[in-house]
């Protein structure tokens, strides 16, 4: 886990970020104008406030980064801006198709959520000077994550939407607490694993070349597995269960560097899926739809998968053009299926472009994990990065019929406040960690131990 310190003078690269931000905003505005030109033949009047809003929101984060985290990764914010903006464009486009205008539009709602997400991001970067502070909240995070996960099961608070009970409703607001549980659990896993990784990676019997852990060390993974199974059973949410479980196994593997954990994890998850398949009609139906989405019977039951595929096929290589396709024919075109909506209008070229943006985002996250010097930061960075990548795989893999469809949001693109807030928080945590990773190691002043304040600031890992 040691990293060589680069001998060159580190550069903040904030200028690069500014240029990339300008490009991202320009792409989004161009897309917005294209939608209106294709739909109504006019340049929309709202383009000025939209452009102003984007510049202000992205600009505020940029300025705060210059001030509070000057060494943060310069690519994460532009990618987030571009993805969030493209999501807004598609939501606005679907608003136009559905006749939801102005303040009633989903786009309007999403802009408000974006502003809130930016405010949270600014607050996080501002107040959280060092990501290692989070380690203090390891077990609080576990409690918070567990509470968030089980909130939808509380009678009167939770709501069942489309067969899955993963929502809570307070007054007019509805929320998917699972999105935040993801972050809390990543913090908990990182904190817990960094403490116990030695025990987990060293103790155990060797069988067939694998070192298997001792029974009592299996405890945490069993707890996580049971937790995932409980969510799966009571909330009927296979996607989230898969996501939390995959996240934990991945972090466990990174912490221990032992493949046996992955083998055990896959085995346990396989058992859970087999159980779910035999016990719940809900899952059997999903698998049936996945295997043959075009049969007459399946088309009658749920035409979502087939319509999404037809939409992507209609787009072909170059797409129908923004505003010129028919993404609204697919149910949940602006949430679960926003990738298919974009793929229809932007074509395979656009779809690959969007996947490349995510790949780049993930690559920056991995680079942050590799670069940061403390174990907790490494685990947290790779955990958050993996959660974004894996969530993307689950939802887009479902849309493209790679795996059975499970409802999850597409990070940054999908309509929905909880998802947007949670993913912006993930991005701000990655920014904070990358600032630590890329910051030059302060030269140790002579007599450092004498000054408690300096000691606090230069502390690398507190085990």
């Amino acid at each position, binding site marked *: *886990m040691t*990293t060589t310190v680069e001998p060159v003078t580190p550069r903040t690269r904030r200028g690069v970020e500014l240029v990339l931000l300008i490009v991202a905003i320009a792409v989004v505005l161009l897309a917005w104008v294209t939608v209106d030109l294709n739909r109504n033949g006019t340049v929309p009047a709202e383009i000025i406030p939209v452009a102003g809003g984007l510049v202000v929101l992205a600009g505020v984060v940029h300025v705060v980064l210059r001030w509070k985290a000057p060494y943060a990764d310069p690519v994460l914010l532009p990618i987030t801006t571009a993805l969030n903006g493209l999501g807004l464009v598609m939501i606005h486009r679907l608003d136009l*198709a559905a006749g939801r205008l102005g303040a009633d539009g989903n786009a309007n709602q999403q802009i408000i959520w974006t502003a809130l997400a930016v405010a949270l991001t600014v607050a996080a970067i501002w107040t959280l000077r060092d990501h290692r502070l989070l380690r203090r909240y390891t077990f609080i995070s576990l409690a918070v994550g567990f509470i968030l996960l089980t909130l939808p099961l509380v009678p009167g608070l939770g709501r069942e939407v489309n067969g899955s009970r993963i929502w809570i409703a307070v007054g007019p607001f509805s929320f998917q607490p699972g999105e935040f549980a993801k972050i809390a659990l990543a913090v908990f896993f990182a904190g817990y694993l960094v403490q116990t990784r030695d025990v987990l990676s060293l103790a155990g019997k060797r069988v067939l070349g694998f070192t298997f852990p001792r029974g009592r060390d299996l405890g945490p993974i069993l707890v996580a597995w049971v937790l995932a199974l409980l969510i799966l059973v009571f909330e009927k949410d296979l996607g989230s269960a898969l996501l939390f479980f995959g996240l934990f196994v*991945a972090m466990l*593997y*990174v*912490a*221990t*560097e032992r493949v046996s954990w992955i083998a055990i994890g896959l085995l346990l998850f396989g058992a859970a899926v087999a159980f779910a398949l035999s016990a719940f009609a809900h899952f059997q139906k999903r698998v049936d739809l996945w295997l043959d989405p*075009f049969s*007459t019977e399946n*088309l009658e039951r749920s035409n979502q998968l*087939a*319509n999404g*595929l*037809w*939409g*992507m*096929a*209609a*787009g*072909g*290589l170059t797409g129908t053009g923004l505003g010129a396709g*028919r993404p609204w*024919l697919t149910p949940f075109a602006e949430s679960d299926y926003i990738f298919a909506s974009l*793929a229809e209008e932007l*074509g*395979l070229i656009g*779809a*690959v472009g969007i*996947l490349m943006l*995510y*790949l780049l985002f*993930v*690559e920056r996250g*991995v680079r942050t*994990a*590799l670069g940061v010097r403390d*174990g907790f930061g*490494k*685990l947290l960075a*790779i955990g958050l*990065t*993996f959660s974004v*990548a*894996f969530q*993307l*795989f689950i939802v*887009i*893999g479902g849309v*493209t*019929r*790679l795996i059975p469809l499970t409802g999850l949001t597409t990070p940054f693109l999908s309509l929905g406040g909880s998802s947007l807030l949670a993913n912006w928080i993930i991005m701000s945590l990655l920014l904070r960690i990358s600032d630590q990773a890329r910051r030059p190691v302060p030269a140790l002043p002579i007599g450092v131990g004498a000054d408690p304040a300096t000691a606090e600031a230069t502390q690398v890992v507190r085990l």
Partner: protein
Amino acid sequence: MNTAIRRLSVLIAALFGALLVASTVIQFVQAGSMRGMAANKRTLLDNYAQERGSILVAGQPIAKSVEVDDQYRWLRTYPDGRLYSQITGFYAYSVGNPFGLEDAADDLLSGKADRLFVRRVTDLLTGRETAGATIELTIDPKVQQAASDALGKNRGAVVALDPRTGAILAMVSHPQYDPNPLSSHDLDKAASAWKKLSTDRSKPFTNRAISGDLYPPGSTFKVVTAAAALEQGIVDDESSMVPGPAALDLPLTDQPLPNETRQPCGPDDRTTLLHALEISCNTAFGSLGLELGGEQLRAQAAKFGFGDSIQIPMRVSPSTMPAEMNQPQAAQSAIGQYEVRTTPLQMAMIAAGIANQGRVMTPYLIQSVRTADLDVIDGPPDPKELSQAVSTRTADILKRMMVSVVDNGSGRRAQIPGVAVGGKTGTAQHDLEKSPHAWFISFAPADDARVAVAVIVEESGVSGNEVGGAAVAAPIAKAVMEAVIGR
């Protein structure tokens, strides 16, 4: 931990690789086959998103696409919907375009036909939105209206042809229906219209003139028997004597073939061929059938078009003769019973062939194919001879005989003052429980025929005589002929 992070990033890269492959498979490899799936609404909507060609009759659209401000963009409307319903069919979001020209000429109307290729390329280059081709029909609106009015509330069909070219001047099938609600963008309205009409027991979607259940031709088939007898030299001309007993003994069976009147057709049980046709003498044509045999009858019918697959461009059900006929069956077939089955269009072709010196012309409905701006792409078509069904001499004899049927025989109700009209009545039994169908086939003016007509009125005859054909069908044919020759 860095080793594990690097390995994990390889896994992440593999996941992304899988997503890229899956996207490529859908949007590139399988895109074509997915677009072609019948249940794919996007493909259907693509068709709605471009202007479909009009169908014109005498320059006026009977089917046209009107731009509307909804997601389907082009609304298909039928200005004189009921009158032309069986010709146009309809174009519906939920069930597509299963009938009529909307189906049969879909490649032209949608602009996908090969012969429109050059047009499509120029449209692409000039940036013009490609519209389907416009189709001009051979239908004469006056004749169509007259045929529909004359048929009135009866179930049945009328076909009028130009004997010289085969152009279809009128094609009416009752009951009619209104195609407009079926093509409505109000999908509930369209669905209920479809449900109501498709389950209607009177089968309004069936174009009785060319398809649906075929009809027995009854006595109108006697002109085919007469044609065969003349061509084979069994009789010499209309004054040749033929047997005409009250009932004809049939070999191999105890059931004799009786006349409807139970009377002999002439003194000494003999009569002339002319008189036999005038009074529709069953025993005379039955005995000619015995002499000719099944093969000869079938061969003559085939020359008039029986068994041919014709597309006008709608598919016309081929009329059929029984495959095997023994002697009594040949006698039955000779008077249009047993298993002889035909369409009104086929019977009109027989009348037209006789009126046109024995030459049967291939019927057609499309006069010309035009661009949306009415530049002619194709047409008018060269009239095509289907066959020389009988010699000119035989045709002349048959023509004189049919004129005499109208002048002196069972077809008097088709007389038009000052015009020589040829015709033949028919009453076709099809179900012992129900009244027989009434037939009339005719042409006018006899010396230079400009129109040939076949009329069938379902279940309007009276069992045992020619009253149906004479009383019900002949006046309808008369009205249609008058509409053509303008008197």
